[in-house]
Protein backbone atom coordinates (compact mmCIF):
# COMPACT_ATOMS: atom_id res chain seq x y z
CA UNK A 1 0.00 0.00 0.00
CA UNK A 2 1.31 3.46 -0.88
CA UNK A 3 2.57 5.56 1.99
CA UNK A 4 1.58 9.17 2.41
CA UNK A 5 4.42 11.69 1.92
CA UNK A 6 4.47 12.17 5.70
CA UNK A 7 4.75 8.45 6.37
CA UNK A 8 7.43 8.17 3.69
CA UNK A 9 9.60 10.87 5.23
CA UNK A 10 9.20 9.51 8.75
CA UNK A 11 9.98 5.95 7.62
CA UNK A 12 13.14 7.23 5.93
CA UNK A 13 14.11 9.14 9.07
CA UNK A 14 13.65 5.98 11.12
CA UNK A 15 15.74 3.94 8.65
CA UNK A 16 12.69 1.83 7.89
CA UNK A 17 11.97 0.89 4.27
CA UNK A 18 9.67 3.42 2.56
CA UNK A 19 7.33 2.36 -0.25
CA UNK A 20 9.60 4.44 -2.47
CA UNK A 21 12.27 7.07 -1.76
CA UNK A 22 11.02 10.46 -0.60
CA UNK A 23 10.98 12.77 -3.62
CA UNK A 24 12.64 16.11 -3.06
CA UNK A 25 15.61 15.96 -5.37
CA UNK A 26 16.86 19.51 -4.89
CA UNK A 27 17.13 22.25 -2.28
CA UNK A 28 15.64 24.68 -4.74
CA UNK A 29 16.21 26.44 -8.04
CA UNK A 30 18.10 29.59 -8.97
CA UNK A 31 16.00 32.36 -10.51
CA UNK A 32 18.29 32.16 -13.53
CA UNK A 33 17.43 28.45 -13.84
CA UNK A 34 13.76 29.30 -14.22
CA UNK A 35 14.63 31.94 -16.80
CA UNK A 36 16.55 29.35 -18.82
CA UNK A 37 13.87 26.68 -18.43
CA UNK A 38 11.13 29.08 -19.49
CA UNK A 39 13.07 29.50 -22.74
CA UNK A 40 13.23 25.71 -22.94
CA UNK A 41 9.52 25.19 -22.50
CA UNK A 42 8.75 25.26 -18.78
CA UNK A 43 5.35 26.93 -18.25
CA UNK A 44 5.80 30.55 -17.15
CA UNK A 45 3.75 30.13 -13.98
CA UNK A 46 6.31 27.66 -12.65
CA UNK A 47 8.72 30.22 -11.27
CA UNK A 48 9.45 29.48 -7.64
CA UNK A 49 10.27 26.48 -5.49
CA UNK A 50 6.79 25.42 -4.32
CA UNK A 51 5.14 25.44 -7.74
CA UNK A 52 8.25 23.86 -9.29
CA UNK A 53 8.56 20.98 -6.84
CA UNK A 54 4.88 20.16 -7.26
CA UNK A 55 5.16 20.48 -11.04
CA UNK A 56 8.11 18.09 -11.11
CA UNK A 57 6.27 15.56 -8.96
CA UNK A 58 8.15 15.99 -5.70
CA UNK A 59 6.42 14.85 -2.53
CA UNK A 60 4.18 17.63 -1.22
CA UNK A 61 5.21 19.17 2.07
CA UNK A 62 4.02 21.81 4.49
CA UNK A 63 6.80 24.32 4.96
CA UNK A 64 6.53 26.97 7.69
CA UNK A 65 9.43 29.32 6.78
CA UNK A 66 9.42 31.32 10.00
CA UNK A 67 13.17 31.90 9.94
CA UNK A 68 15.51 31.01 7.11
CA UNK A 69 18.45 32.09 5.01
CA UNK A 70 16.87 35.53 4.62
CA UNK A 71 16.18 36.47 8.21
CA UNK A 72 16.18 35.14 11.78
CA UNK A 73 12.41 35.11 12.33
CA UNK A 74 11.73 38.80 12.91
CA UNK A 75 8.14 39.84 13.40
CA UNK A 76 7.54 42.31 12.13
CA UNK A 77 10.32 41.76 9.61
CA UNK A 78 12.29 44.80 8.51
CA UNK A 79 10.95 46.43 5.37
CA UNK A 80 12.96 45.58 2.29
CA UNK A 81 13.82 49.18 1.48
CA UNK A 82 16.06 50.73 -1.17
CA UNK A 83 18.36 53.33 0.35
CA UNK A 84 20.34 54.30 -2.70
CA UNK A 85 20.74 53.25 -6.32
CA UNK A 86 24.34 53.39 -7.45
CA UNK A 87 24.50 52.45 -11.10
CA UNK A 88 24.82 48.68 -11.27
CA UNK A 89 24.24 48.35 -7.52
CA UNK A 90 21.49 48.93 -5.05
CA UNK A 91 22.13 49.74 -1.42
CA UNK A 92 19.20 48.57 0.62
CA UNK A 93 18.05 47.49 4.03
CA UNK A 94 16.97 43.88 3.73
CA UNK A 95 14.42 41.93 5.74
CA UNK A 96 17.08 40.92 8.28
CA UNK A 97 17.76 44.59 9.08
CA UNK A 98 21.18 44.61 7.43
CA UNK A 99 22.25 47.31 5.03
CA UNK A 100 23.53 45.41 2.02
CA UNK A 101 24.81 46.01 -1.46
CA UNK A 102 23.22 43.87 -4.16
CA UNK A 103 23.32 43.84 -7.92
CA UNK A 104 20.66 46.05 -9.47
CA UNK A 105 20.09 43.39 -12.13
CA UNK A 106 18.74 41.06 -9.45
CA UNK A 107 21.25 38.37 -10.46
CA UNK A 108 21.85 35.67 -7.86
CA UNK A 109 24.78 36.33 -5.57
CA UNK A 110 25.49 36.63 -1.87
CA UNK A 111 24.79 40.22 -0.82
CA UNK A 112 27.69 42.23 0.48
CA UNK A 113 26.84 43.33 4.02
CA UNK A 114 27.66 46.95 4.77
CA UNK A 115 26.15 47.10 8.23
CA UNK A 116 24.33 44.51 10.33
CA UNK A 117 21.70 45.35 12.95
CA UNK A 118 23.54 44.19 16.08
CA UNK A 119 26.82 45.60 17.35
CA UNK A 120 26.50 45.31 21.10
CA UNK A 121 24.16 44.41 23.94
CA UNK A 122 22.18 47.61 23.52
CA UNK A 123 21.43 47.07 19.83
CA UNK A 124 20.71 43.40 20.52
CA UNK A 125 18.16 44.35 23.17
CA UNK A 126 16.39 46.55 20.62
CA UNK A 127 16.33 43.88 17.91
CA UNK A 128 15.33 41.14 20.36
CA UNK A 129 11.86 42.63 20.63
CA UNK A 130 11.17 41.36 17.10
CA UNK A 131 12.00 37.84 18.19
CA UNK A 132 9.09 37.28 20.56
CA UNK A 133 7.21 34.03 19.98
CA UNK A 134 4.07 35.41 21.59
CA UNK A 135 3.70 38.43 19.28
CA UNK A 136 0.07 38.75 18.22
CA UNK A 137 -0.49 37.53 14.67
CA UNK A 138 3.06 36.25 14.21
CA UNK A 139 2.11 32.80 12.96
CA UNK A 140 -1.05 33.69 11.01
CA UNK A 141 0.87 34.17 7.76
CA UNK A 142 2.17 30.59 8.00
CA UNK A 143 -0.46 28.44 9.67
CA UNK A 144 -3.12 28.88 6.99
CA UNK A 145 -1.46 26.11 4.99
CA UNK A 146 -2.54 23.63 7.62
CA UNK A 147 -6.09 24.17 6.35
CA UNK A 148 -5.25 22.86 2.86
CA UNK A 149 -7.41 19.77 2.32
CA UNK A 150 -5.34 16.61 2.53
CA UNK A 151 -2.37 18.39 4.06
CA UNK A 152 -2.44 16.11 7.09
CA UNK A 153 -0.77 13.57 4.81
CA UNK A 154 2.16 15.90 4.12
CA UNK A 155 5.15 16.30 6.42
CA UNK A 156 5.18 19.63 8.22
CA UNK A 157 8.55 21.38 8.42
CA UNK A 158 9.30 24.29 10.69
CA UNK A 159 12.08 26.29 9.02
CA UNK A 160 14.27 28.11 11.46
CA UNK A 161 17.36 30.24 11.19
CA UNK A 162 20.12 28.27 12.90
CA UNK A 163 22.30 29.59 15.66
CA UNK A 164 25.33 30.35 13.51
CA UNK A 165 22.87 31.65 10.92
CA UNK A 166 21.17 33.92 13.45
CA UNK A 167 24.48 35.18 14.82
CA UNK A 168 25.61 35.92 11.27
CA UNK A 169 22.37 37.63 10.30
CA UNK A 170 22.51 39.80 13.41
CA UNK A 171 26.19 40.74 13.41
CA UNK A 172 27.44 40.16 9.86
CA UNK A 173 30.13 37.64 8.92
CA UNK A 174 33.37 39.43 9.82
CA UNK A 175 32.06 41.04 13.04
CA UNK A 176 30.77 37.62 14.09
CA UNK A 177 34.17 36.00 13.62
CA UNK A 178 35.68 38.74 15.80
CA UNK A 179 32.83 38.52 18.32
CA UNK A 180 33.73 34.89 19.08
CA UNK A 181 36.87 36.38 20.59
CA UNK A 182 35.73 39.76 21.85
CA UNK A 183 32.02 39.52 22.59
CA UNK A 184 31.40 35.94 23.75
CA UNK A 185 28.83 37.08 26.32
CA UNK A 186 26.79 38.82 23.63
CA UNK A 187 26.82 35.70 21.45
CA UNK A 188 25.74 33.55 24.40
CA UNK A 189 22.94 35.97 25.29
CA UNK A 190 21.70 35.73 21.71
CA UNK A 191 22.00 31.95 21.86
CA UNK A 192 19.93 31.73 25.05
CA UNK A 193 17.25 33.85 23.45
CA UNK A 194 17.43 31.74 20.26
CA UNK A 195 16.56 28.68 22.31
CA UNK A 196 13.65 30.29 24.15
CA UNK A 197 12.34 31.92 20.96
CA UNK A 198 12.25 28.70 18.96
CA UNK A 199 10.91 26.68 21.89
CA UNK A 200 8.05 29.15 22.04
CA UNK A 201 7.46 28.98 18.29
CA UNK A 202 7.47 25.18 18.17
CA UNK A 203 5.16 25.00 21.18
CA UNK A 204 2.67 27.37 19.57
CA UNK A 205 2.71 25.50 16.26
CA UNK A 206 2.25 22.21 18.08
CA UNK A 207 -0.98 23.57 19.55
CA UNK A 208 -2.34 23.34 15.99
CA UNK A 209 -0.42 20.33 14.78
CA UNK A 210 2.75 18.60 15.85
CA UNK A 211 5.57 19.40 13.42
CA UNK A 212 7.24 16.42 11.80
CA UNK A 213 10.56 18.08 11.15
CA UNK A 214 12.68 21.09 11.89
CA UNK A 215 14.90 22.47 9.14
CA UNK A 216 17.79 24.48 10.53
CA UNK A 217 19.55 26.85 8.12
CA UNK A 218 23.18 27.25 9.13
CA UNK A 219 25.34 27.37 5.95
CA UNK A 220 28.30 27.34 8.31
CA UNK A 221 30.64 25.23 6.20
CA UNK A 222 32.46 26.11 3.01
CA UNK A 223 34.69 24.39 0.51
CA UNK A 224 37.52 23.72 2.98
CA UNK A 225 35.58 22.89 6.13
CA UNK A 226 33.55 24.56 8.86
CA UNK A 227 33.97 28.30 9.39
CA UNK A 228 34.35 27.71 13.11
CA UNK A 229 36.06 24.73 14.67
CA UNK A 230 34.68 22.01 16.94
CA UNK A 231 35.88 23.87 20.04
CA UNK A 232 33.93 27.01 19.17
CA UNK A 233 30.96 24.84 18.20
CA UNK A 234 31.06 23.19 21.61
CA UNK A 235 31.15 26.55 23.37
CA UNK A 236 28.80 28.66 21.28
CA UNK A 237 26.40 26.19 19.70
CA UNK A 238 26.23 22.69 21.18
CA UNK A 239 24.61 23.51 24.56
CA UNK A 240 21.89 25.52 22.85
CA UNK A 241 21.31 22.89 20.18
CA UNK A 242 20.96 20.23 22.87
CA UNK A 243 18.48 22.36 24.77
CA UNK A 244 16.29 23.14 21.76
CA UNK A 245 16.46 19.68 20.19
CA UNK A 246 15.82 18.01 23.54
CA UNK A 247 12.70 20.13 23.94
CA UNK A 248 11.50 19.58 20.37
CA UNK A 249 12.03 15.86 20.44
CA UNK A 250 11.23 14.89 24.03
CA UNK A 251 8.50 17.37 24.90
CA UNK A 252 6.97 18.16 21.51
CA UNK A 253 7.54 14.80 19.81
CA UNK A 254 9.25 16.22 16.69
CA UNK A 255 11.09 13.26 15.14
CA UNK A 256 13.32 14.96 12.53
CA UNK A 257 15.93 17.67 13.05
CA UNK A 258 17.68 18.51 9.79
CA UNK A 259 20.61 20.91 9.49
CA UNK A 260 21.58 22.59 6.22
CA UNK A 261 25.32 23.19 6.51
CA UNK A 262 26.58 23.59 2.92
CA UNK A 263 30.22 22.82 2.18
CA UNK A 264 32.54 20.39 3.93
CA UNK A 265 30.89 19.51 7.23
CA UNK A 266 32.85 16.36 8.10
CA UNK A 267 34.60 17.78 11.14
CA UNK A 268 31.33 18.87 12.66
CA UNK A 269 29.36 15.69 11.97
CA UNK A 270 30.13 14.14 15.39
CA UNK A 271 29.14 17.41 17.05
CA UNK A 272 25.81 17.59 15.24
CA UNK A 273 25.07 13.95 16.03
CA UNK A 274 25.96 14.46 19.67
CA UNK A 275 23.64 17.47 19.79
CA UNK A 276 20.73 15.37 18.51
CA UNK A 277 20.63 16.23 14.81
CA UNK A 278 19.38 13.29 12.72
CA UNK A 279 19.37 14.63 9.16
CA UNK A 280 22.09 16.55 7.31
CA UNK A 281 21.97 18.29 3.94
CA UNK A 282 23.25 18.99 1.20
CA UNK A 283 26.72 17.29 1.07
CA UNK A 284 28.37 19.29 -1.71
CA UNK A 285 30.62 17.19 -3.89
CA UNK A 286 32.61 20.26 -4.98
CA UNK A 287 33.57 20.59 -1.31
CA UNK A 288 34.84 17.01 -1.33
CA UNK A 289 31.80 15.34 0.21
CA UNK A 290 31.28 11.66 -0.63
CA UNK A 291 28.05 10.45 0.92
CA UNK A 292 28.79 6.80 0.16
CA UNK A 293 31.94 7.00 2.30
CA UNK A 294 30.11 9.00 4.96
CA UNK A 295 27.41 6.35 5.15
CA UNK A 296 30.04 3.64 5.69
CA UNK A 297 31.38 5.59 8.66
CA UNK A 298 27.97 6.63 9.99
CA UNK A 299 25.63 3.77 9.08
CA UNK A 300 22.44 4.86 10.82
CA UNK A 301 23.01 7.96 12.93
CA UNK A 302 21.42 10.46 10.54
CA UNK A 303 19.55 10.69 7.28
CA UNK A 304 21.62 11.91 4.37
CA UNK A 305 19.79 14.21 1.97
CA UNK A 306 21.69 15.22 -1.15
CA UNK A 307 25.20 14.29 -2.20
CA UNK A 308 24.65 13.94 -5.97
CA UNK A 309 27.04 16.24 -7.83
CA UNK A 310 24.92 18.92 -9.50
CA UNK A 311 27.77 19.52 -11.96
CA UNK A 312 27.10 16.13 -13.57
CA UNK A 313 23.80 17.59 -14.74
CA UNK A 314 25.65 20.26 -16.71
CA UNK A 315 26.90 17.58 -19.05
CA UNK A 316 25.30 14.68 -20.90
CA UNK A 317 23.24 11.65 -20.03
CA UNK A 318 26.31 9.50 -19.60
CA UNK A 319 27.68 11.82 -16.91
CA UNK A 320 24.30 11.87 -15.18
CA UNK A 321 24.05 8.06 -15.36
CA UNK A 322 27.51 7.65 -13.84
CA UNK A 323 26.89 10.07 -10.99
CA UNK A 324 23.47 8.67 -10.14
CA UNK A 325 24.80 5.12 -10.17
CA UNK A 326 27.75 6.11 -8.02
CA UNK A 327 25.57 7.58 -5.33
CA UNK A 328 21.96 6.49 -5.43
CA UNK A 329 22.14 2.69 -5.54
CA UNK A 330 24.54 2.22 -2.60
CA UNK A 331 22.77 4.90 -0.60
CA UNK A 332 19.33 3.38 -1.08
CA UNK A 333 20.78 0.02 -0.15
CA UNK A 334 22.18 1.50 3.06
CA UNK A 335 18.93 3.29 3.99
CA UNK A 336 18.17 6.66 5.53
CA UNK A 337 18.68 8.44 2.23
CA UNK A 338 16.77 11.11 0.31
CA UNK A 339 18.16 11.27 -3.23
CA UNK A 340 18.97 14.83 -4.27
CA UNK A 341 21.60 16.96 -5.93
CA UNK A 342 23.96 18.70 -3.56
CA UNK A 343 22.28 22.14 -3.53
CA UNK A 344 19.81 24.14 -5.62
CA UNK A 345 19.63 23.58 -9.39
CA UNK A 346 21.93 26.10 -11.08
CA UNK A 347 21.27 27.61 -14.51
CA UNK A 348 23.90 25.43 -16.16
CA UNK A 349 21.37 22.56 -15.98
CA UNK A 350 19.06 22.24 -18.99
CA UNK A 351 15.42 21.41 -18.48
CA UNK A 352 15.97 18.26 -20.53
CA UNK A 353 18.79 17.09 -18.26
CA UNK A 354 16.77 17.88 -15.15
CA UNK A 355 13.84 15.83 -16.41
CA UNK A 356 16.17 12.98 -17.36
CA UNK A 357 17.81 13.08 -13.93
CA UNK A 358 14.45 12.93 -12.14
CA UNK A 359 13.27 10.06 -14.30
CA UNK A 360 16.46 8.11 -13.71
CA UNK A 361 16.58 8.64 -9.95
CA UNK A 362 12.91 7.86 -9.49
CA UNK A 363 13.04 4.78 -11.66
CA UNK A 364 15.99 3.47 -9.67
CA UNK A 365 14.22 4.25 -6.40
CA UNK A 366 11.00 2.59 -7.42
CA UNK A 367 12.81 -0.53 -8.57
CA UNK A 368 14.90 -0.64 -5.43
CA UNK A 369 11.90 -0.39 -3.12
CA UNK A 370 9.86 -2.88 -5.13
Amino acid at each position, binding site marked *: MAMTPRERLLATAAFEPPDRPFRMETLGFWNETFERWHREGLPGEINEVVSATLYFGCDPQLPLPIGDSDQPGFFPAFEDEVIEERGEYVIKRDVSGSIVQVLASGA*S*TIPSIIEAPVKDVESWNRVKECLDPSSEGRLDQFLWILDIPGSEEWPMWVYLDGLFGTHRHLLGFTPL*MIAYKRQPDLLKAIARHWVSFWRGIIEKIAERRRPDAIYVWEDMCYKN*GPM*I*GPKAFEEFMAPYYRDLIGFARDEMGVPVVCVDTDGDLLELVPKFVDAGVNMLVPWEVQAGMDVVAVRREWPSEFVIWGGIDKRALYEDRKAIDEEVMRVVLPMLEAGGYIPAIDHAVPP*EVSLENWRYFLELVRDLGDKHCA
Partner: protein
Amino acid sequence: MKDNRAARVAPVKEGLMSEQLDKLKQAMTELDLDAIAPLVKQGLDEGDQPVLLLEAMCLGMAGVGDLFEKGEYYLADLVLAGEGMKEGLEVLQPHLKASDTGGKGTVVVCTVKGDIHDIGKNLVGTMLSSSGFKVIDLGTDVPAEEIVKAVRDNDAQAVGLSVLLTSMVQSIGDVVRALDAAGLRSNVKVAIGGACTTQELCDKMGADALGRDAVEAVRIFEGFCK
Protein backbone atom coordinates in the same frame (compact mmCIF):
# COMPACT_ATOMS: atom_id res chain seq x y z
CA MET B 1 68.49 49.31 32.91
CA LYS B 2 69.99 47.19 30.20
CA ASP B 3 69.80 48.73 26.75
CA ASN B 4 68.83 46.03 24.26
CA ARG B 5 68.62 48.45 21.32
CA ALA B 6 71.22 46.37 19.44
CA ALA B 7 68.86 43.41 19.37
CA ARG B 8 66.09 45.65 18.19
CA VAL B 9 67.79 46.68 14.99
CA ALA B 10 69.01 43.21 14.08
CA PRO B 11 67.08 41.46 11.32
CA VAL B 12 64.10 39.67 12.73
CA LYS B 13 64.53 35.97 12.39
CA GLU B 14 63.04 33.13 14.32
CA GLY B 15 65.04 32.74 17.54
CA LEU B 16 66.85 36.05 17.15
CA MET B 17 64.08 38.40 18.19
CA SER B 18 64.06 40.68 21.15
CA GLU B 19 61.66 39.69 23.86
CA GLN B 20 59.31 42.52 22.85
CA LEU B 21 59.21 41.52 19.21
CA ASP B 22 58.74 37.92 20.16
CA LYS B 23 55.78 38.90 22.31
CA LEU B 24 54.24 40.70 19.36
CA LYS B 25 54.77 37.75 17.06
CA GLN B 26 53.28 35.45 19.65
CA ALA B 27 50.27 37.73 20.20
CA MET B 28 49.59 37.56 16.45
CA THR B 29 49.94 33.81 16.26
CA GLU B 30 47.86 33.24 19.37
CA LEU B 31 45.25 35.75 18.18
CA ASP B 32 45.56 37.81 21.34
CA LEU B 33 43.85 40.74 19.61
CA ASP B 34 43.80 43.10 22.55
CA ALA B 35 47.57 42.81 22.99
CA ILE B 36 48.68 43.53 19.41
CA ALA B 37 48.18 47.30 19.03
CA PRO B 38 49.49 48.06 22.57
CA LEU B 39 52.59 45.94 21.89
CA VAL B 40 53.23 47.83 18.65
CA LYS B 41 52.83 51.14 20.46
CA GLN B 42 55.10 49.99 23.26
CA GLY B 43 57.70 48.86 20.73
CA LEU B 44 57.61 52.23 18.99
CA ASP B 45 57.85 54.05 22.30
CA GLU B 46 60.87 51.97 23.25
CA GLY B 47 62.61 52.59 19.96
CA ASP B 48 62.00 49.43 17.97
CA GLN B 49 62.39 49.99 14.25
CA PRO B 50 58.92 50.06 12.66
CA VAL B 51 60.02 47.64 9.97
CA LEU B 52 61.04 45.11 12.62
CA LEU B 53 57.68 45.43 14.35
CA LEU B 54 56.04 44.83 10.99
CA GLU B 55 58.21 41.82 10.40
CA ALA B 56 57.31 40.40 13.80
CA MET B 57 53.62 40.75 13.00
CA CYS B 58 54.18 39.10 9.64
CA LEU B 59 56.01 36.20 11.27
CA GLY B 60 53.11 35.90 13.69
CA MET B 61 50.74 35.84 10.73
CA ALA B 62 52.83 33.12 9.10
CA GLY B 63 52.35 31.16 12.32
CA VAL B 64 48.59 31.60 11.93
CA GLY B 65 48.89 30.23 8.40
CA ASP B 66 50.82 27.20 9.65
CA LEU B 67 48.19 26.45 12.27
CA PHE B 68 45.43 26.85 9.67
CA GLU B 69 47.16 24.38 7.39
CA LYS B 70 47.58 21.93 10.27
CA GLY B 71 43.85 22.13 10.88
CA GLU B 72 44.22 23.74 14.29
CA TYR B 73 42.86 27.08 13.12
CA TYR B 74 39.70 27.73 11.13
CA LEU B 75 38.37 30.40 8.83
CA ALA B 76 37.23 32.39 11.87
CA ASP B 77 40.84 32.45 13.09
CA LEU B 78 42.11 33.79 9.77
CA VAL B 79 39.57 36.61 10.04
CA LEU B 80 40.72 37.31 13.60
CA ALA B 81 44.33 37.37 12.47
CA GLY B 82 43.41 39.83 9.74
CA GLU B 83 41.75 42.04 12.33
CA GLY B 84 44.84 41.85 14.56
CA MET B 85 47.04 42.81 11.63
CA LYS B 86 44.76 45.71 10.77
CA GLU B 87 44.78 47.04 14.33
CA GLY B 88 48.54 46.70 14.61
CA LEU B 89 49.06 48.43 11.28
CA GLU B 90 46.82 51.34 12.27
CA VAL B 91 49.41 52.16 14.94
CA LEU B 92 52.41 51.27 12.84
CA GLN B 93 51.55 52.63 9.40
CA PRO B 94 52.45 56.30 10.02
CA HIS B 95 55.94 55.16 10.98
CA LEU B 96 56.60 52.94 7.98
CA LYS B 97 58.41 53.98 4.82
CA ALA B 98 57.04 52.92 1.45
CA SER B 99 60.08 50.68 0.99
CA ASP B 100 59.27 48.80 4.20
CA THR B 101 56.34 47.00 2.63
CA GLY B 102 55.48 45.16 -0.54
CA GLY B 103 58.96 43.87 -1.23
CA LYS B 104 57.83 40.50 -2.51
CA GLY B 105 55.93 41.87 -5.47
CA THR B 106 52.69 43.47 -6.52
CA VAL B 107 49.45 41.54 -6.81
CA VAL B 108 46.09 42.77 -8.05
CA VAL B 109 43.20 41.02 -6.25
CA CYS B 110 39.47 41.28 -6.85
CA THR B 111 36.20 39.42 -7.14
CA VAL B 112 35.25 38.89 -10.77
CA LYS B 113 32.56 40.72 -12.72
CA GLY B 114 29.06 39.66 -11.71
CA ASP B 115 29.99 38.60 -8.19
CA ILE B 116 29.98 40.80 -5.09
CA HIS B 117 31.11 38.20 -2.57
CA ASP B 118 34.26 39.40 -0.80
CA ILE B 119 35.11 37.21 2.18
CA GLY B 120 37.66 35.03 0.39
CA LYS B 121 39.13 37.92 -1.56
CA ASN B 122 39.61 39.96 1.61
CA LEU B 123 41.33 37.07 3.38
CA VAL B 124 43.70 36.51 0.48
CA GLY B 125 44.50 40.24 0.39
CA THR B 126 45.24 40.29 4.12
CA MET B 127 47.43 37.20 3.98
CA LEU B 128 49.37 38.56 0.99
CA SER B 129 49.91 41.97 2.61
CA SER B 130 51.05 40.23 5.77
CA SER B 131 53.49 38.19 3.77
CA GLY B 132 55.25 41.14 2.18
CA PHE B 133 53.29 41.73 -1.01
CA LYS B 134 51.93 45.04 -2.20
CA VAL B 135 48.24 44.33 -2.73
CA ILE B 136 46.05 46.33 -5.07
CA ASP B 137 42.53 45.41 -3.98
CA LEU B 138 40.03 46.41 -6.67
CA GLY B 139 37.01 45.21 -4.68
CA THR B 140 34.16 43.17 -6.11
CA ASP B 141 32.32 42.88 -9.43
CA VAL B 142 35.38 44.10 -11.30
CA PRO B 143 35.40 44.11 -15.13
CA ALA B 144 38.38 42.74 -17.02
CA GLU B 145 39.42 46.12 -18.42
CA GLU B 146 39.75 47.56 -14.91
CA ILE B 147 42.01 44.68 -13.92
CA VAL B 148 44.18 45.22 -16.99
CA LYS B 149 44.49 48.92 -16.15
CA ALA B 150 45.47 48.16 -12.54
CA VAL B 151 48.07 45.64 -13.66
CA ARG B 152 49.56 48.17 -16.06
CA ASP B 153 49.39 51.16 -13.69
CA ASN B 154 50.98 49.25 -10.82
CA ASP B 155 53.35 47.09 -12.80
CA ALA B 156 51.82 44.06 -11.08
CA GLN B 157 53.34 40.61 -11.48
CA ALA B 158 50.20 38.66 -10.66
CA VAL B 159 46.43 38.74 -10.42
CA GLY B 160 44.25 36.89 -7.91
CA LEU B 161 40.63 36.34 -8.93
CA SER B 162 37.92 35.26 -6.50
CA VAL B 163 34.76 33.65 -7.83
CA LEU B 164 31.94 32.14 -5.82
CA LEU B 165 29.30 31.14 -8.30
CA THR B 166 29.51 28.82 -11.27
CA SER B 167 27.57 31.31 -13.36
CA MET B 168 30.44 33.81 -13.07
CA VAL B 169 33.29 31.55 -14.12
CA GLN B 170 33.35 32.95 -17.65
CA SER B 171 34.67 36.18 -16.13
CA ILE B 172 37.95 34.38 -15.42
CA GLY B 173 38.42 33.68 -19.10
CA ASP B 174 37.52 37.29 -19.88
CA VAL B 175 40.36 38.51 -17.64
CA VAL B 176 42.89 36.10 -19.11
CA ARG B 177 41.94 37.12 -22.64
CA ALA B 178 42.00 40.83 -21.77
CA LEU B 179 45.50 40.53 -20.31
CA ASP B 180 46.54 38.69 -23.43
CA ALA B 181 45.02 41.30 -25.72
CA ALA B 182 46.80 44.05 -23.79
CA GLY B 183 50.12 42.28 -24.32
CA LEU B 184 50.55 41.73 -20.59
CA ARG B 185 49.81 38.05 -20.21
CA SER B 186 53.33 36.74 -20.65
CA ASN B 187 54.52 38.78 -17.66
CA VAL B 188 51.49 38.41 -15.43
CA LYS B 189 50.41 35.21 -13.69
CA VAL B 190 46.77 34.59 -12.83
CA ALA B 191 45.55 32.56 -9.85
CA ILE B 192 41.92 31.78 -9.05
CA GLY B 193 40.08 30.69 -5.94
CA GLY B 194 36.59 30.39 -4.54
CA ALA B 195 33.75 27.97 -3.91
CA CYS B 196 33.18 26.85 -7.48
CA THR B 197 36.79 26.69 -8.64
CA THR B 198 38.53 23.47 -9.60
CA GLN B 199 41.78 22.57 -11.30
CA GLU B 200 39.79 21.63 -14.38
CA LEU B 201 38.21 25.10 -14.45
CA CYS B 202 41.60 26.71 -13.91
CA ASP B 203 43.02 24.86 -16.91
CA LYS B 204 39.96 25.52 -19.06
CA MET B 205 40.03 29.26 -18.38
CA GLY B 206 43.75 29.53 -19.01
CA ALA B 207 44.67 30.58 -15.47
CA ASP B 208 48.01 29.58 -14.00
CA ALA B 209 47.07 28.26 -10.57
CA LEU B 210 44.22 27.33 -8.31
CA GLY B 211 44.41 28.40 -4.67
CA ARG B 212 42.52 26.25 -2.21
CA ASP B 213 42.64 28.83 0.58
CA ALA B 214 44.25 32.12 1.60
CA VAL B 215 47.29 30.41 3.07
CA GLU B 216 47.99 28.44 -0.07
CA ALA B 217 47.50 31.65 -2.05
CA VAL B 218 50.58 33.11 -0.37
CA ARG B 219 52.72 30.20 -1.54
CA ILE B 220 51.33 30.46 -5.05
CA PHE B 221 52.09 34.17 -5.34
CA GLU B 222 55.52 33.69 -3.80
CA GLY B 223 56.17 31.23 -6.60
CA PHE B 224 54.84 33.66 -9.20
CA CYS B 225 56.91 36.60 -7.98
CA LYS B 226 60.25 34.85 -7.49
